[in-house]
């Protein structure tokens, strides 16, 4: 299997370098420009990025351990697509109206805040370094285990990093996006093919496979609406940790990938008008979610029976079993897992390098940098990012994994800021920043980095990771929204709101939103809430027995499938219909052609907002000073 694996890795690497070389040959096009990308790159690339954010190997390992309660998270891809429908169109239009093609500069310019720009940069760095390094370390473990150590872990990590770096530095952002989108298409095809192949070859049922889990874990049920557990590491949840609130809050965290700098950069650069709607409805919410809902139990059932100590060894064991049947199938499984990781790393690292070179180097460090100089800065940034992430993957996989846990939940903390940019001009800079700080603190103290730091330095906290089986993303977002709304009450109006209103006036003039009458608007929001409640939230508990022991039948029904799996498929179908209705019928993701560069926001340090201490601090100081 090893030689076949090397050959097929060589083919995918050759594809990447070939496309990058073609991009580099077009010298009239600046290689690091992010605009004018074809629709298909966003259609497939965004779906691939969402699967990379989920972490296919981690998702399969969790499903193999916890059963259908963990694979229920696949339905969360519909929530991810709904988040995309909500914000991506307006972000793209805002970029078009302001002429700002970078998410950090867009938020910074709109709110007049350098802090937000730095927050986006930090987020980009979190995805590019620890998140990517943890994923790359997993690739090293998997390939090393699959080849019984013949290919050493460090060598695999170095080779994969080099073959991701080469196309990036040769062909720039354009090549990165082409290759990642192409790989996303390959990954989706492989996922479908391997699910069917595993089902056929290893005798796992194609629909609703039973996942053999350890004793005490409910394999085909959700273990409650929520549990009064102190959190992972401090208390045990009975029957498993994936309660309905756990699933909903994890889906919220996954939706953070839509607000990640790489995803937004990808969206802003797409030129076709229906790419966003098509991508969210049919590829992310449709194909990717459907494949995971149906395919995860099959692969997880096979994975659960594979012998092995850790997830990488178990996955390698499954690849070995498939290779015994047909070597290409075993290699295909490894290519699938590695391909998903490569998509994420390429896009996260490329976006971080581009954002850093554009927003930090070209604006602050070397303000008079020529376009050629900016390209060089981006290439140097790429080299630094790839060198760092490879070093972290080889030498610090555990710290990387600990820090990586922050990326998704911190991403979703940008939701109020983006909602302000897209729809709510009354959300002020202070409100958004206050919410962001509170939300980030909540995330930090309900994830391993904060817990380890606080426990080590001060006193042991009474809660662990995800207390009450609620993901840190939801804890952070709840406090974030509360703080944002509270601060917004006191900071409405003034010159700052006039500054923000310019964009919303331009939205109204150039791209009037037609969300329908009051009843239609109400239906849109209430149906989304109702779907979320039943598909992912507390209502999903009904799925445990709804089809196997229906209340209206007076006894158990012989469905032949786990009731929860049928519930997942049903709400995936309904979710796709809901996305379609909002994206196409509601025109929430169809981007109309229209004017550009109507609004001018500063992309450098804001001069419109003079640096001054908050009024309450000024007054308090004045009082103290007078005494």
């Amino acid at each position: 299997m090893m030689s076949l694996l090397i050959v097929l890795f060589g083919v995918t690497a050759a594809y990447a370098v070939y496309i990058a070389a073609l991009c580099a040959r077009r010298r009239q096009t600046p290689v690091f420009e992010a605009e004018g990308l074809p629709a298909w790159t966003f259609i497939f690339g965004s779906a691939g990025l969402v699967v990379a954010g989920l972490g296919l190997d981690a998702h399969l390992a969790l499903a193999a351990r916890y059963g259908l309660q963990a694979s229920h998270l696949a339905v969360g891809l519909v929530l991810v697509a709904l988040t995309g429908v909500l914000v991506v169109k307006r972000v793209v239009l805002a970029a078009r109206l302001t002429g700002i093609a970078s998410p950090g500069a867009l938020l910074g310019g709109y709110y007049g805040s350098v802090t937000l720009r730095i927050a986006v940069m930090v987020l980009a760095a979190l995805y590019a370094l620890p998140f990517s390094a943890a994923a790359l370390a997993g690739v090293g473990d998997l390939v090393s285990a699959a080849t019984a150590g013949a290919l050493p872990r460090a060598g695999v990590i170095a080779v994969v990093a080099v073959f991701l770096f080469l196309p990036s530095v040769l062909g720039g952002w354009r090549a990165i996006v082409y290759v990642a989108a192409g790989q996303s298409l390959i990954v989706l095809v492989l996922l479908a093919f391997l699910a069917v192949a595993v089902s056929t070859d290893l005798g796992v049922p194609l629909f609703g496979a039973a996942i053999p889990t350890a004793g005490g874990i409910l394999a085909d049920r959700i273990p409650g609406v929520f549990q009064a557990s102190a959190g992972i590491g401090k208390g045990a949840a009975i029957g498993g940790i994936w309660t309905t609130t756990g699933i909903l809050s994890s889906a919220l965290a996954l939706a953070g990938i839509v607000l990640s700098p790489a995803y937004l950069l990808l969206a802003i650069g797409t030129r076709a008008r229906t790419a966003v709607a098509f991508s969210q409805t049919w590829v992310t919410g449709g194909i990717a979610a459907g494949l995971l809902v149906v395919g995860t139990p099959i692969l997880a059932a096979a994975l659960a029976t594979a012998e092995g100590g850790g997830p990488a060894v178990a996955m390698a064991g499954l690849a070995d079993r498939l290779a015994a049947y047909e070597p290409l199938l075993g290699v295909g499984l490894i290519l699938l897992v590695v391909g998903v990781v490569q998509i994420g790393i390429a896009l996260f690292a490329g976006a971080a390098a581009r954002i850093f070179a554009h927003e930090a180097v070209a604006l602050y460090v070397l303000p008079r940098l020529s376009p050629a100089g900016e390209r060089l800065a981006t290439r140097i940034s790429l080299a630094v990012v790839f060198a760092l992430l490879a070093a972290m993957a080889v030498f610090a996989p555990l710290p990387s994994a600990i820090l990586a846990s922050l990326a998704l939940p911190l991403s979703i903390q940008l939701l109020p800021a983006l909602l302000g940019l897209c729809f709510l001009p009354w959300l002020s800079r202070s409100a958004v920043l206050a919410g962001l700080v509170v939300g980030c603190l909540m995330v930090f103290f309900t994830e391993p980095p904060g817990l380890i730091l606080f426990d080590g330095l001060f006193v042991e906290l009474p809660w662990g990771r995800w207390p009450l089986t609620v993901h840190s993303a939801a804890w952070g977002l709840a406090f974030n929204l509360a703080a944002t709304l509270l601060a917004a009450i006191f900071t409405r109006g003034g010159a700052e709101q006039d500054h923000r209103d310019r964009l919303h006036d331009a939205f109204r003039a150039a791209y009037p939103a037609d969300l329908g009458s009051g009843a239609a608007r109400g239906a849109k929001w209430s149906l989304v809430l109702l779907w979320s409640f039943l598909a992912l939230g507390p209502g999903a508990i009904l799925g445990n027995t709804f089809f196997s022991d229906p209340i209206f039948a007076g006894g158990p029904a012989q469905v032949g499938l786990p009731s929860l799996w049928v519930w997942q498929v049903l709400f995936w179908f309904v979710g796709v219909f809901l996305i379609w209705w909002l994206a196409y019928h509601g025109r929430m993701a169809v981007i109309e052609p229209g004017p550009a560069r109507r609004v001018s926001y500063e992309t450098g340090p804001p001069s419109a907002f003079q640096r001054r201490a908050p009024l309450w601090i000024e007054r308090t100081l004045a009082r103290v000073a007078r005494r």
Partner: protein
Amino acid sequence: MSARPEDDPLDRHALVVAVWLAGGFVAATLLSIGLERGSFVVTLAAFGAALAAFIGHVIVNEVFQTGFTPRELGLGLVGAVAGLVAIGLGGLVSPEFRATGFLPASLGLIGLAAAVIVYMLIRHGVRGAFDAFDVIRDFRR
């Protein structure tokens, strides 16, 4: 966002290569399983995967409002001839292949050829499709 006409061939080419990589891998795996185990259905399914990749290629052409490039046509013809030779040789030298693989492989190749003819008929019409192969008329000019 600005569209650059000079990027269109690259946009299309990157997608076409991805489509054939995905379809090609599935087809190769199925063909290997089918021939190894002598399965009629799986061998035929391998050609089905190649057909799916071809249909994907046609869809990409339609989206980009273009046809097959001369290089793609050349590569396709070389592939078809290589397939034909491989099936012929396999049938001659390997009794095992003759017994289990020859029929599905031949049917698959015929199916692919039929798909190409149907595509040409739909795209160019009967006269246009015939004209493409009308070598004698070229000599008359």
